[in-house]
């Protein structure tokens, strides 16, 4: 019997160690595989403006800029809509049936695969953007950074909306009732009491949504136009770190090319780690700090 307990404990420990080893190996693989291009290009890789497999010149700047542009633009487009939806569900909809329906709906939409959003974007968003571009007098590519951002914004909306609704649940009903009893209007309660109360939770939700947007691959690959030059405006064709890997990895023309893409993956991973860690830090430290203080 004691022997069996030891074996059981050993199996659990073995699993935990396996996870740690696999994860270290994961990072190690990225590091060793990108070493070749890191040796050639050094830290200048990050600021290099040219990505040319023919001349074997690789710099990540067009894709870093493309990633940041699409993600932040998506966040900006999405924020007012997701906040409104989250506030509606968290502050205005009080019927449990309606709230349940809404949460099921939001969950389902969050589960639509990225490749389907890409498909939909090509069929619906791209023609609309094309029309807008003709009105504005810019080249009517349709695809590009702007179209990607719109679809990305729609993709992160369910997540940000349900995050906002969840944190609004943390506002004690007594505080809301007290404010209403003092004669505040609903709008004053939401803007003056509830939102300030949960601001750190919302900030964390925004960061976690950003972390998702940065690494989002398929929809962006299908919509961004896959150009390897530095984007000059939000209507430019471009590429993100993820989309250039998705579109070029299988057709890598040399070892250096493949190694440069491993380095792109490492850059992308570092970016998302930093953003996610910041989000989690706000969650763990902010939750306590806001208590009793509005």
């Amino acid at each position, binding site marked *: 019997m004691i022997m069996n307990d030891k074996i059981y404990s050993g199996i659990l420990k073995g699993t935990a160690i396996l996870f740690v080893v696999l994860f270290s190996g994961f990072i190690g693989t990225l590091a060793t595989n990108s070493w070749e291009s890191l040796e050639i290009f050094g830290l200048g890789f990050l600021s290099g403006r040219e990505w040319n497999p023919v001349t074997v010149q690789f710099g990540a700047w067009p894709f870093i800029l493309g990633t940041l542009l699409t993600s932040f633009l998506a966040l900006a487009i999405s924020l007012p809509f997701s906040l409104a939806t989250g506030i509606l569900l968290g502050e205005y909809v009080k019927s449990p049936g309606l709230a349940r329906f809404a949460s099921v709906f939001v969950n389902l939409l969050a589960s639509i*695969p990225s490749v389907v959003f890409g498909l939909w974007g090509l069929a619906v968003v791209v023609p609309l953007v094309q029309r807008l571009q003709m009105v504005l007098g810019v080249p009517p590519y349709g695809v590009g950074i702007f179209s990607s951002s719109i679809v990305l914004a729609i993709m992160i909306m369910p997540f940000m909306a349900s995050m906002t609704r969840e944190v609004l649940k943390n506002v004690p009903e007594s505080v809301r009732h007290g404010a209403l009893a003092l004669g505040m209007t609903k709008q004053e309660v939401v803007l003056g009491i509830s939102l300030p109360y949960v601001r750190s939770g919302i900030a964390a939700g925004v960061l976690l949504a950003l972390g998702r947007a940065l690494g989002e691959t398929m929809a962006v690959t299908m919509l961004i136009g896959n150009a390897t030059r530095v984007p000059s405006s939000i209507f430019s064709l471009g590429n993100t770190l993820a989309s250039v890997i998705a579109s070029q990895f299988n057709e890598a023309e040399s070892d250096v090319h493949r190694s440069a893409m491993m380095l792109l993956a490492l850059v992308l991973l570092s970016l998302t780690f930093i953003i996610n860690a910041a989000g989690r830090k706000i969650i763990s430290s902010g939750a306590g700090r806001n208590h009793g203080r509005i």
Partner: protein
Amino acid sequence: MGAFDHDEGYRLRVRKNAAFTWLVLLPSLLVLAILAVIVLTVFLKGVKALNPRFFLETQKPFGDPGGGIANGIVGSVMVLGIAALVSVPLSILAALHLVEKSSSFLSTLLRLVVDSLQGIPSIVIGVVIYAWMVVSLGSFSAFSGGIALALIMIPTVTTSIQEVLLLVPASYMEAAISLGVPRWRASLGILLPAAKSGILNGVGLGIARISGETAPLLFTAFGNPFMNLNAAKPTGAIPLIIYEYIKSPYADWHEKAWGAALILVAFVFALNMAVGARKTDKSR
């Protein structure tokens, strides 16, 4: 009442309040409308492609009539099956470690690994599995695709299993151990069965999460226009078919991409609803 009616400040506040309500309501309705349009577009465009041959035949060269996505359906089942077989036992063991030895150093480390895995973009997982498996085995394969998806599935499943294990009353384990049941039998015979339905939910959510993943399959399962049942060979998958077909210049293939998207979305929705329905049954 009368006194308030003449109060300019009060009226302004009431008007501001009404305006704010619309400011909240209108964007929400727009979000709802957009999302409804997405689901409707997928349904209307996808349903045109559906017929028995679509499910039963493999890819035909362009121009030949018929042809379907049977290779993708079988490939997806194979890749998802491998992913589940690999990730579910590992996730259960990891969750047991997190719950039973929650304060140990190894658990802290394990939690960090699971959290970090959760945040890794799926394309990066594809790249690493390519380096691990495709390079060393010399070929794209269903097996490497399954492993890539398993890595994505593990954090979701581990976290949700850990949550349901924590819900099992401590008295169950205490009673078992005080009766002299060895620790391992109490864990496997009492803790896990008590959490069985929660574990199934977690696995369902995990599979729903990975069934639409495309990026990590590009460099691992790769895709295959023919029916393939060998896990060591390149394999098609429904998401890969959507991506490949919509990139093609043929209208017929575009229609099939929408058909495949409809099947994928219907599968993911059904799985999510099943998990949701089980959860409400539990709470009643």
